């Protein structure tokens, strides 16, 4: 998250609300380690990443929803037989992303 702090500062200075999404768990092959961070403003602006680009747009949708609801949630993305996994990592791994409003 450290490298995104200047961006977060800027959004706060512009009066925007912000959600932060961090990889908290990976299973199998994944491009980014736990701690990889993406931040999203309520205007839909994005900085950082949580994968090699496979799940970012789904995370933006989750982040905007989290900004509205104010409730943190964990989203799981990966290859699975379970139909709930609509968005996958092409590398075959599973990644768990904690998406939360930056209100702390």
């Amino acid at each position: 998250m450290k490298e995104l702090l200047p961006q977060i500062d800027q959004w706060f200075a512009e009066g925007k609300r912000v959600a932060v999404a961090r990889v908290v768990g990976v299973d199998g092959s994944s491009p980014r380690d736990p701690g990889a961070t993406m931040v999203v403003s309520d205007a839909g602006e994005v900085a950082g990443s949580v994968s090699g680009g496979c799940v970012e747009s789904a995370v933006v949708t989750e982040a905007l929803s989290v900004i509205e609801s104010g409730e943190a949630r964990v989203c799981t993305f990966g290859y699975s037989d379970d139909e709930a996994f609509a968005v996958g990592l092409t590398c075959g791994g599973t990644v768990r992303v904690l998406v939360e409003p930056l209100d702390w």
Partner: protein
Amino acid sequence: MTGRVAPGGGIFQALRAALAASRPAGLATVAAVDETAGAINVGSKLLVVPGAWAPAAPSSEAGVLAGTPGSEAGVLAEGAETLLGGFGDADLDRVVARDVRAAISSGLTVTRHYGPHGEARQMEVEVFIEVFATPPRMIIFGAVDFTAALALAAKLLGYHVEVCDARAVFATRERFPMADEVVVEWPDRYLDRTGRDLGPRDAVCVLTHDSKFDVPAVLAALRTGVGYLGAMGSRRTHDERLKRLLEAGAEPAQLAERLMSPIGLDIGARTPEETAIAICAEIIASRTGIKVPSLRRREGPIHRR
């Protein structure tokens, strides 16, 4: 909600202030809670900033940071460190704070599981511990062309880069604008002065090529806990340096274990820029423990004809 404050809240501001002051910090966040675990909120947080540290708090946050009784983000004054937030259970807070301190020491972000009161070997509460480490240090001795290229590559990898040479005419800001610090000082004195805290994540690269400078530099670096120590030079320079190091009292076993000389991976690098990549790649490989061909493992000239 325990541990939660108003938007733009105190934990984020305190984290921001700690990082601005170049302090390491650890932030624990509850990522998941089993429904049997009771009233612990996903997203609740505990910030740990070890060591004596007084955040330069904006006045609006002063009440939170000073731990005003009854404030939502309670400050647990414990020793000289800063603790902010909490999960609403004193035992869980204590156990997680301990694990955050350990994570900060190792420099590794981790996910851990606990019982609702911090019990080990239980899975009800998942806590994500993000470590905000200070940048590792790379100290480069010798203000030569290879130094400029290595300093650039090291910045790419996130190092705090310090260039040190005893010769004031070479060690100038103008020649090394990419370095965080350019110091005119004898290498051994510089290390004795600033090297006490060097650890496994840090690197010392001796590029002086001159035994007058690099023998004292290597000896001083061996007295520190630095994780990577390399010295540049041809096979002849290396042999000569080894002889002088042994004469100066260096332990043969310690040299064999810690000194990467000639410095760098054996990838056929020739230019200063390619050599910088060979050195950085060797530093990465020494951290990950992956066996790759280092120049010091091979006989014969460094530059194949």
